[in-house]
């Protein structure tokens, strides 16, 4: 190795915003965002299935776009904002109340949009990114929006319905 290349096999400290909170992790350059979320931050909602960009189970939102966290290096997320499934449910302001599910989560329950549930966090994050760019999608646009998320159980028809229902809930919620 030429000596004037900066050495950096070693771990480094990076800070990123995950679900609106600052988190600092100490990672090797080869650590993927997916592993950093799951192993370092204990956020196991994003799933590791193929680890090669072929299934969508690891989908999170970076900035305002859905991405695969298995093909993203954690060190390249320094200073970035990441949203995962864990950040969707919000605290209810009423004292003693439980978390309030996000409209997309509610719609998934209402429409029975999963069987094993393994693909669900990825589907929901893909739909969240879709609805942020397009609050009133057609069925075809929904299909395109989740076309990067495989469902081995074949729950697709209900996933599409849930996405359309979530769009409706979010629009009426203003």
């Amino acid at each position, binding site marked *: *190795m030429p000596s004037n*290349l900066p050495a950096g096999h070693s771990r480094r400290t990076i800070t990123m915003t995950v679900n609106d909170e600052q988190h600092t992790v100490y990672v090797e*350059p080869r650590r993927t965002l997916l592993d950093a979320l799951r192993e370092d931050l204990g956020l196991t909602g994003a799933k590791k299935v193929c680890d090669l960009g072929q299934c969508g189970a690891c989908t999170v939102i970076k900035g305002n776009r859905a991405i695969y966290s298995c093909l993203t290096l954690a060190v390249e997320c320094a200073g970035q904002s990441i949203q995962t499934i864990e950040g969707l449910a919000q605290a209810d302001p009423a004292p003693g109340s439980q978390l309030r599910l996000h409209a997309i989560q509610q719609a998934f329950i209402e429409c029975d949009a999963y069987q094993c549930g393994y693909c669900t966090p990825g589907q929901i994050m*893909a739909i969240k990114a879709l609805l942020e760019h397009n609050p009133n999608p057609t069925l075809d646009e929904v299909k395109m929006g989740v076309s990067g998320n495989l469902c081995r159980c074949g729950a697709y028809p209900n996933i599409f319905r849930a996405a359309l229902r979530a769009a409706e809930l979010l629009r009426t919620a203003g």
Partner: protein
Amino acid sequence: MMKPFDHVDANSAARAAALLGEGNQAAPSRPEDRPVRLIAGGTDLLTVMKDDIVSPQTLVNIKTVPDLDRIQFDVATGLHLGPLVSLTDLEHDTLINDRYTALAQAAHLSASPQLRNMATIGGNLLQQSRCWYYRGPFHCWLKGGDECYAREGENKYHAILDQGQCITVNPSDPAQALIAFDATLHILGPSAQRDLKVEQFFINPTPQRRALNQLDDDELITAITLPTPPPDTHSVYLKMMDRQTWGFALVSVAARITWDGDRIARADIIMGGVAPTPYRATIAEQEITGRSRSDLHSGLADRAAHKAMRDAHPLEHNAYKAPLGAALIKRALLAL
């Protein structure tokens, strides 16, 4: 798990070229052995690193170089794409949809929404082969071995034209559209800059250069430029996949016609999925150039499409590609 590596953020294209130049000085005999590699979207690179096909010691991140993600257009100079323009941006850009339709369509038909958000156009042109022997634990010819396992093996996705010692196909969709629009790559090395047409950039691997393109160990793509198409130019990108989305092309066609009134003044028909490089269907182009729209619609498109495939040499599992290619050419021409 990937092997450990260093990670460096480059702040300029010149710095990135310098780091490549220093790190790859020893000029490895196989491109796979380059110790220093650029990382853009990472969507191809990390997959080949996870599969231990390449194991660089250093990654130079170019996403920290300012302005490489710009799309600019000027009628006099044409379209300028920074290498970091994402496939999502290509897919949605209004001007590209309007003037370079096949390019927007090719981007739209590539990979999946998440991958298009991450994938850059520069990295897209430099993808490694998707041949399953190449991606698997086989020391095949392209990787420096003696034998092409696909020739007598599982070759459903392989080339039917221009077969050399390696019969893989180039996985890029946008490549075909860029060639149809006569695009040029601007390439920077540590001490020199050169321009190369995208059409010349892709090569059929040779024993001396077992690679799908002409990029040297110490070079990076700094821009892609496309001339302004003449008025009355129309284009389309059609792609067949195993499923409707998120698949590499079985066969694809970028077709572009510039009309002079009712006559075809210029035709470009570039196919993907049929050869180790994007394949120009010269025979079909010649067949239709100078002819009229009504000729095209009364049998000419069909004849040209079939002639284009007459040199095909299907292998055991990919005979379907020749009729598919002919059908796509015909359909593309009739859409213009």
